[in-house]
């Protein structure tokens, strides 16, 4: 859970330039975030990173694919 984030990860996440990340992604996706909402979005990106961390650390067996399965 959220506690799985190690201190090291947490430090890295805190040092990460979330604002620049958001600006670059805005450019690539064409979704602009007005200034008044950027702090909320950055907080949400940080929360997402915490919740996703266990997934990022999880080793998934090779035989499992992300592809959908079509059976005739």
């Amino acid at each position, binding site marked *: *859970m959220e506690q*799985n984030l190690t201190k090291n990860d947490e430090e890295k996440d805190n040092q990460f330039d979330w604002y620049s*990340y*958001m600006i670059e*992604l*805005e450019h690539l*996706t*064409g*979704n*602009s*975030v*007005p200034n008044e*909402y950027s702090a*909320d*979005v950055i*907080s*949400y*990106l940080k*929360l*997402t990173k915490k*919740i*996703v*961390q*266990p*997934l*990022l*650390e*999880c080793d*998934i*067996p090779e035989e*499992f*694919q*992300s592809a959908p399965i079509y059976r005739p």
Partner: protein
Amino acid sequence: MNNKFLYKDASKISSAVRKGEVSAREITESFLQRAITLNDKYNCFSQFLSSRALKEADKVDAIIERGGDPGVLAGVPYGVKNLFDVEGVTTLAGSVMYKDNPAAEKDATVIKRLQRSGAVLIGTLHMSEFAYGYTNENSHYGPVKNPHDITRVSGGSSGGSGSSVAAGMVSFSLGSDTNGSIRLPAALCGVFGFKPTYGSLSRFGTKMFASSFDHVGPLARSVEDIATAFDAMCGTDPYDPVCHGGNDVSLVSSLNQKIDDLRLASLDGYFKNNGSDESYESVDHVCKALNITNSVKISNTDSARGAAFVITHCEGGLEHENDIRNNIDKFDPTTRAGFITGTLLPANWYVKAQKFRSWYRSQVLNIFNDFDILLAPATPFSATKIGQKTMKLDGSDVPVLSNLGIYAQPLSFIGLPILSVPIHGIGGMPHGVQLITAPGKESSLIKIASYLENEGICIAPIANGAVK
């Protein structure tokens, strides 16, 4: 006003209507009057459909007068979360952005099916904006209040659906569940809430949140009403590509059946962490009633929550990309950042989440080789106060919004059928226990829930404050 039927379950109302003991019009008028009066207190309904309801009721009465059968839900009043299309009504999905949209041209598939079964739609119900949020504190339309304590939240996102049933304003309601949005309000409002197998009920004519997670399903005060409503809505639908129509077993036929052959276990590990003592006590209460001594752990459930979180936000962000581009200021402040974030996440997170989903699903399906039904709390704590941001758990303050769904979310994205059953009397507010089974095995859930209801373990009385 026909008080005699106001506090009855759908099955009793339908039976009385079909026998001619009361007309569908009388029932409809009584419920409309009651719901309109109570709505000031609970804020469940976004729109009452009095004219449509009375027309539907008159059709039922006309069929009975001709000696025909109007269906298993004859004259039963119900409401739908306002993301379902209702002919002639603008589909709000909890947002002000859509309030000037043209009205829906036809009913959602499940509403058409309920109409064919004689049910009477009396109104549309408030929800969290775009089905995103666990407390239903919608900034535009106000919070839906919990009938067991109006200072507390109803749970979300189908808050109006849970609260209206708990208050006896309708006999049953429809909600949608992406990451817990039927199960949470059912648990917090103390009623039954059913998220069937992914694809078993058509979602055509509903506003999606995250399509690969989205389910629709009923909330009700009895297991029989859940089963009856589900059976009435079942069937394939060419307009919903994921709808397979469920299985051929009628859930009503599973009521009051023996349960000796069912293998049961409670979920350990993740599902016994980060919750309140009361939430675990609720599960223990059910386990004791069923003599459950086995417990089982699903590995990597924290990763499952992460995967569900990523996929939901990516799908939801894309679903609302035009709204983000054109109406960003009109979002509910509680949902805006989440939807924007969904458009900004790295692709490798999303693909890993999908890969994990396949793996996790196979792991969980393996557990069903040994057990038929698994039990877990529906929520880590009972309904919080309206406006409450944090909750004290194990001495730490945890955010309500991101924690209320921790037990529901990891089970949603692998499509399992889950019935949240209500527990009253542990602490001041109701709790819910999730009964979880393998895809297509809904009948097992109904057997167990029916037993628990008959034993008085899981019952859903109308909230005291709503009973005159």
